[in-house]
């Protein structure tokens, strides 16, 4: 499990951690029942406060992504298909946004962009 924190970002650190873990869980990169690193261990690796890690874990637990067993640790909870699909849909939206932004930056109009989209859709 690789978490990369950007200390210069405007996004709070605990959100970055929770967000990245969530995405990896939904993509299936971290399997169900995997034990997560202890709060202190992740705090050590990332060089941040243990309370920040705890906040991230609490967020993930509240949203149903992990379960904590007192005395044992935190484990990835089973995710349902719906959440996974929703995550994939969000990725599609993001890809569209990127393509449209690129198109606009080289001067393409809405009509031109729509034409390109239709053309590719028909070909596939």
């Amino acid at each position, binding site marked *: 499990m690789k978490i990369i924190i950007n200390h210069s970002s405007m996004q709070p650190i605990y959100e970055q951690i929770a967000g990245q873990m969530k995405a990896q869980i939904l993509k299936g990169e971290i399997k169900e029942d995997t034990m997560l690193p*202890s709060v202190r261990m992740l705090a050590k690796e990332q060089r941040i*406060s243990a309370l920040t890690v705890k906040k991230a874990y609490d967020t993930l637990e509240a949203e149903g992504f992990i379960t904590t067993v007192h005395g044992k640790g935190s484990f990835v909870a089973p995710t349902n298909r719906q959440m996974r699909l929703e995550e994939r849909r969000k990725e599609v939206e993001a890809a569209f946004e990127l393509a449209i932004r690129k198109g606009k930056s080289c001067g393409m109009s809405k009509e031109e962009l729509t034409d390109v989209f239709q053309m590719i859709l028909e070909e596939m």
Partner: protein
Amino acid sequence: MLKLRNVKKKYKDFELDCSMEVRPGMITGFVGKNGAGKTTTLKAALGLIRPDGGEVELFGKPAAVLGKAGRTRLGVVLADSGFCGYLTIRDLLPSLERMYPKFDRAAFLEKCNRFHLSDNKKIKDFSTGMRQKLHVLFALSHDARLLILDEPTAGMDVLGRDEILDMFREYMEEKEDRAMLVSSHIAGDLESLCDDIYMINDGHIIFHEETDALLGDYALLKMTREQYQKLDKSHVLRFREENYGYSCLTDQKAFYMDNYPDVTVENNGIDTLITMMIRGERV
């Protein structure tokens, strides 16, 4: 683990009056200008000076009843604590073992080796930085439940600091109920290590916040005079006049980012916090 309740101490030119707490499992940071009362507070916590009022509680009991056994569960590094300069590390070992029943000789020597502290050299011939490291390494070698460290990384270069901080983190990872109180001037150390921060000024605690909130919710706003006049100041803790207009310290970064997209918002660190809390004016 450690509780100071309205601890008061009066000196000729200075008066201490402070309350703070270090909980098990936490690393608490302590900042303040030189002369603000950090060392006095630490000494009061350790019973090295007797307060004029208030209570000090260590490991759940009044500090006065701590006793020898209790004191061996404390790991302490103060600025002027010292081993006898004419001894080498090897000379010290027997006394250390006798004083601290949980002293781990092998682990201690391994740590000294890691930091290139020769065990056969007279301590008075160590550099200041090396002597500092020796104190810190010893504090980490007898299973102390509470570490009280006054500027443990002072004078160390960034690589040495990094290694010592990693050792602190590992120390906390080994046993869940350990705790640390660290005073430091090095913002980066505190931001990457501590769970919460107390700030002392003129003998009083003027600030206490979780590091997470400090780094995530606090920010420095920079704006022109006109922007300042139109600004909703209900979440501004301090402000300062600058040559470009005004700078403001807030604990509600998101509020200003959402409502004032034209105002520059800068991530905040402990150094800015200290400067603004002490030099800034209240709204």
